[in-house]
């Protein structure tokens, strides 16, 4: 009996050691395969899609083994990356927002990529020019490229064509007036019990939506030198007032992605969402669906969101070289097209738009080509670490308190701007 217990324990230890390796961490194994840890926040269908591509990379690159490790959420990923860098044990590759990269650069933890791009296994000037407008520039600090665009999304309007048809609406709204008007017409009390049960639109508490409205209205997020808030302008106030009107009178606000479920259930006429929302809704709706570019006001807006991928400077050279290979492979026209077609993220290469996989996807989803074409006038968020904190203030103090009708849009904008300015001044 006792001997049995002891044996079981020994077996368990042996199993743990063989499964994991005693010191943890992986590293270069004896057969010359370079093992890379890649930390990301992709879950659900996105995680599945990423894992499949990683498996394919590992199969086509027998000397490299990328381990895909999901931290579930960006917030958790950020905490894990920062703690790991503090520990001096960062992964080899990770998804990172520009603001995180800036922290990493300051800490000398992000590997400069120019050397790899110019190197034998690099990218030609034409290939670099093939990247979507601004995506390389947005990953460049002081003339040095530190990260590559990885999962980039743009906003789109999702349309329940059945509900639109019922109202005699044939096209997506193209400007704010139509946006408001269509939403009003789509808001109904279907069962006649006196309570609204179909809404024109819905959305989450999102700085991203506000920022796009702001830009559509000709406003700017920060001043040109990035030291002060610029969204507290008359353009910004109009944008927030419009957002509040839309979401509280003809729509409903949910936190998280709950509004997508309502939309899937056929209770919402149209929603704004990320192009990625598509992969979460796939197969879960039963109506005729189309996507469309966002309505415009004074101008069009396409504020790109999503993270980039960085290599950590602390990794040994062999790993960094292998990590670069992964980045190059993943951002190649063919792979980015498949990644985009599968997940809804925007392809990062212009030539990917003509890739057969992408073309087929465009045929499947009505309006998707036009949505992705919004990238022509792509703009990006301010990327300083201070803005990363400031953006939270804009979302919580500005957008959330206004949408939840805790403050008037005017008060909300003013207090958010004050908080952002305080953050930027630090």
């Amino acid at each position: 009996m006792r001997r049995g217990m002891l044996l079981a324990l020994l077996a368990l230890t042996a199993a743990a050691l063989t499964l994991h390796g005693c010191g943890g961490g992986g590293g270069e194994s004896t057969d010359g395969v370079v093992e890379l840890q890649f930390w990301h926040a992709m879950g659900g269908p996105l995680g599945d899609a990423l894992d499949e591509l990683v498996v394919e990379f590992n199969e086509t690159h027998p000397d490299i083994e990328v381990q895909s490790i999901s931290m579930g959420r960006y917030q958790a990923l950020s905490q894990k990356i920062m703690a790991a860098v503090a520990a001096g044990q960062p992964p080899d590759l990770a998804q990172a927002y520009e603001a995180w990269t800036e922290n990493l650069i300051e800490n000398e933890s992000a590997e400069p990529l120019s050397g790899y791009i110019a190197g034998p296994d690099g990218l030609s000037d034409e290939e670099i020019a093939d990247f979507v407008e601004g995506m390389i520039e947005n990953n460049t600090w002081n003339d040095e490229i530190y990260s590559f665009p990885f999962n980039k999304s743009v906003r789109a309007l999702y349309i329940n064509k059945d509900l639109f048809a019922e109202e005699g609406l044939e096209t997506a709204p193209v400007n704010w007036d139509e946006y408001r008007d269509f939403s009003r017409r789509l808001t109904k009390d279907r069962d006649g019990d006196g309570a609204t049960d179909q809404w024109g639109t819905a959305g989450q508490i999102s700085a991203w939506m506000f920022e796009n409205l702001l830009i559509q209205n000709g406003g700017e997020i920060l001043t040109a030198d990035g030291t002060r808030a610029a969204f507290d302008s008359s353009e910004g106030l109009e944008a927030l007032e419009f957002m509040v009107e839309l979401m509280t009178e003809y729509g409903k606000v949910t936190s998280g992605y709950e509004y997508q479920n309502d939309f899937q259930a056929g209770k919402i006429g149209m929603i704004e969402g990320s192009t990625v929302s598509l992969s979460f809704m796939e197969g879960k709706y039963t109506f005729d669906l189309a996507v469309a570019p966002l309505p415009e006001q004074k101008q069009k807006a396409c504020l790109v969101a999503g993270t980039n991928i960085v290599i950590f400077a602390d990794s040994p050279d062999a790993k960094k070289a292998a990590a670069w290979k992964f980045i190059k492979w993943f951002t190649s026209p063919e792979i980015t097209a498949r990644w985009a077609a599968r997940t809804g993220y925007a392809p990062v290469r212009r030539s990917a738009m003509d890739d057969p996989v992408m073309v087929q996807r465009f045929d499947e989803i009505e309006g998707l080509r036009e949505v992705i074409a919004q990238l022509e006038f792509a703009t990006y968020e301010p990327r300083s670490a201070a803005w990363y904190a400031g953006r939270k203030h804009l979302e919580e103090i500005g957008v959330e308190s206004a949408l939840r009708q805790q403050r008037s849009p005017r008060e909300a904008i003013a207090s958010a701007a004050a908080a952002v300015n305080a953050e930027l001044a630090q």
Partner: protein
Amino acid sequence: MNWLETLRRNKAMDPITAALYIVPAGIIVLIFRMIPIASAFVLSFFDVKMGRVRGFIGLAHYVRLFQDPTFFNSLGTTAYYVIGVVPASLFLSLFLAVLLNQKIKGLGFYRTIYFLPVVTSLVAISMVWKWIFHPRLGLLNFVFEKLGGNSLLWLEEPRGIFEMAAGGLGWEWWPEALSGPSLALVAVVIVAIWRGIGYNIVIFLAGLQNIPDQYYEAARIDGANTRGVFWRVTWPLLSPTTFYVMLSTTIVSFQVFTQIYLMTGPPVGGPMGTTKVIVYYLFEKGFDAGGNMGYASAVALILFGIILTLTLIQRRVVESRVYY
């Protein structure tokens, strides 16, 4: 030298032999408790960014703490949480324990059920309750609507409950300072009470069963009714237990983290930062962007100071009234 003396000598052992017995536990306590606790103290005087010590800065972290509105908000939120959990949990568990102490049938059954959440992981409990609080599909709103009430946003509601109540009464204006904890925080409080009640019941039951029967008999002979017996016998004789339950629930409540981390947001601590408790704040400061571990340690020490002070105050106040 007779055998008795040998014995005595054996008992009065040399420190080296004793050390051999204590060392295994001692080393671990030293490395993983004493050193970290001491380091927390030391770190709070240093500027640490992303794990790199950048220099001694004296009390600068503490000075900044006292000007940090997020810190004070997190303190206030934690205080609301503790005040929400402790009295309610105490009252409900004492009430149920007194019911269970009535020589009822199936005591074991009831106790087993009430205690069930205590063995269930907080992670799972948080997930289940988050789903129950779901504003549109949740069980709780379903029950509320069945009972004729309005559905609520629960974990997504940043408005204070007093403000909501005032609104419900049709009052247009309510002072912002008195809006109270957000409904989202109240939802987290409900889960804490639900989870901890079984534990407190068991402790109270043990305390109740320690009260000798003759006290009850004596009170009854004096003509006391049920309520009189409770106030004259049960309550005073149970006060050491009540004190203990109050103390332990308070201390545990100050450290709330898991429910906040899993039930609120995204971002965690939402909506509008109304559920950002102090332990999550120090977690965020220490491990998120910037990795400001010095500042996080300063927050940690303030938390420790509060818990220690409360323990001492509670002990002094209650000790003077407890009947041992």
